[in-house]
């Protein structure tokens, strides 16, 4: 009988799906392994707690982690290595994942994380409102959203009478901006070329991207300041036809819809406002905290690995949370392909823009801090977009 202490940062619909998975695991492994799960506040609070408690040997046995932040985690000694033997013992292997995903879990060739999913920014829409405005195609998908001016015109059309063209939570706007930066083909980081935003051109692209979102704010298409739950409510209460958010809110709407409390809705990839398709993306993964000072227990580790493998193998349910499973077998299964609206936006996985591989990357890391210290405020007019972009570059390069 093993008890596996599990920490995650998965709130909202994610949280519910994960809880269901844990419950299912516990039921299936009754008498052998029990997962004891805790959900902590996403971001800095979670990563601070994980880091400190791992340092004093009081961390959990397993935790969720963002692949983008693995370099930083390894640098601070928070994580314990996951060997090939560990993997084999649980019946999984490198080859179960795409090379890209599996490599993202390694630093200097040593594995510290097992990928779980890929998630990214998508566009939620209100079918009823779009249909009324004649923006809905036969297939129930929106049409004619591409192109910056075009998209803005559509937003303008819905704005007014206490309604907003689009709902974008202030704290998450950097993701939209990073996506739009990607749509212009910008380079965020190139160590050889001088670090972050190596050319003035890159900086201009970033400024451009900020200007777009700031334009929405300035034109009143979206509220200046709005917290995530409120932004969600703006959409779900029909006050706004579009909602830009990560795919993790899918289950929220699925559930609401199932309860009969929501209109017909859908989700698609972000519209292409510049040259390329691109959307911000990151991956959830599982890690084993180093828990320094605590005696290694092979049985516990085996159990933990078993949990990881089971989770990956059952990630079809996780796909219900809107994410794209990292486990090849699941992702390629027919069941996954049949999921709606997941399949409508699955394409973003191929054009995703990830955080660069650096120890500054990830949430609750300098890059994440810089996003919220410079870029989010730039959308509300607190800092000039160009200044914000420059300050972000200087700040990050200063920390390299």
């Amino acid at each position, binding site marked *: 009988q093993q008890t596996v202490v599990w920490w995650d940062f998965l709130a909202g619909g994610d949280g519910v799906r994960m809880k269901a998975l844990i419950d299912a695991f516990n039921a299936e492994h009754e008498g052998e392994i029990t997962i004891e799960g805790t959900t902590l*506040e996403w*971001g*800095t*609070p979670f*990563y*601070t707690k994980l*880091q*400190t408690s791992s*340092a*004093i040997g009081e961390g959990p046995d397993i935790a969720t982690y963002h692949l983008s932040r693995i370099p930083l985690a390894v640098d*601070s000694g928070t994580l314990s290595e996951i060997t090939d033997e560990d993997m084999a013992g649980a019946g999984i292997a490198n080859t179960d994942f795409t090379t890209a995903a599996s490599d993202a879990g390694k630093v200097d060739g040593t594995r510290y994380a097992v990928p779980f999913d890929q998630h990214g920014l998508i566009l939620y829409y209100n079918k009823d409102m779009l249909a009324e405005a004649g923006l809905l195609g036969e297939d129930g998908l929106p049409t004619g959203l591409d192109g910056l001016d075009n998209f803005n015109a559509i937003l303008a059309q819905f704005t007014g009478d206490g309604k907003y063209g689009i709902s974008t939570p*202030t*704290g998450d706007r950097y993701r939209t901006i990073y996506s739009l930066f990607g749509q212009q083909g910008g380079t965020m980081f190139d160590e050889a070329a001088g670090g972050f935003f190596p050319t003035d051109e890159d900086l201009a692209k970033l400024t451009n991207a900020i200007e777009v979102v700031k334009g929405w704010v300035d034109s009143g298409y979206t*509220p*200046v*300041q*709005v*917290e995530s739950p*409120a932004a969600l*409510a*703006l959409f779900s209460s029909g006050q706004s036809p579009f909602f830009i958010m990560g795919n993790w809110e899918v289950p929220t709407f699925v559930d609401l819809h199932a309860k009969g409390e929501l209109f017909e809705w859908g989700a698609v990839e972000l519209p292409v406002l510049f040259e390329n398709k691109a959307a911000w993306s990151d991956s959830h993964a599982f890690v084993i905290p180093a828990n*320094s000072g605590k005696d290694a227990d092979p049985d516990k580790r085996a159990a933990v690995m078993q949990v990881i493998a089971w989770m990956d193998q059952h990630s079809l349910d996780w796909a219900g949370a809107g994410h794209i499973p990292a486990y090849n077998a699941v992702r390629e299964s027919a069941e996954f392909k049949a999921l709606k609206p997941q399949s409508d936006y699955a394409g973003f996985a191929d054009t995703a823009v990830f955080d660069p591989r650096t120890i500054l990357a990830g949430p*609750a890391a300098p890059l994440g*801090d810089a996003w*919220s*210290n410079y870029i*989010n*405020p730039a959308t*509300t007019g*607190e800092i000039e977009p160009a200044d914000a972009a420059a300050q972000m570059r200087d700040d990050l390069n200063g920390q390299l």
Partner: protein
Amino acid sequence: MLRDRKQEYLTALILVGPFILIYGALFVWPTIQMVLLSFTKAPLIGAGDWVGWDNYVKILSQKLFHSAFWNTAWFVVLTVIPNTLISLAIALAVNRLNGWLQGFVLACFFLPYILPVSVVFLTWNWIIDVQYGLAQGVVALFNGGEPKSLTRTIPLFMPTVAFVTVWWTMGFNILLFIAGLRNISPEIYEAAQLDSAGRWRQFMRITWPLVWPVTVLVLTIQLIAQLKIFDQVYLFSIGGRQDATITLVQYIYKLAFQQNKGGEAATAAVLLFGMIIVLSVLQYQLLRARGEK
């Protein structure tokens, strides 16, 4: 008194023993450790090399430290003086009342003081919520009919948290002021009435000078307490631009627990330590000088 010395020492040892253990292990020892740690380049857990004054040089030149310092100072300004004035005004108003009405009114003002900070945070965070918060009705009046986030708009952050802090802690000060007012004998006021002093003159010439000592006390308590601010500012800043609103204790927290720099965190702590001692002494001397002119 005839004393049995030996027995007295023994008794004292038994009675003071627990205190010595507790304070020695949890106050004296950590304080010494803190000073020592501030001269090393240690992570949060574990030893580090002796680096002399390096940490001090580094911290004192760091932008984040400056912003933590000024944010803290700004917060102190925003809370200490308004809190004192408002508390005095309310104490005067409450002191006029009597019977159950006074008890009820006092309880209304005092109840917030005994609540945990997280409750205060959750309550106010809901009230000022940008979309559904009740307070947005008022905010809209000053913002062209638009709601505005009070805790995500940086210039508004400290005033907002200060406002909440004043609401939360004024009950304590009100009590002190009421006690001070009650200390003034009613006969003094009767004498003043016979001396033809009107309401305003009574306040300026009798009440104010006589509650001045309480005012000094309240100011001092506030100053020391607010310099150590962490909880509210931290909670309201979660998910926001934490660096822009960071305070000194939060800075220590960040260095130690987020950045794993134990030595530098200890350095910042020593600096805070010194600041509080110097400031409280200064403030006390200053206010006392004024009170006794």
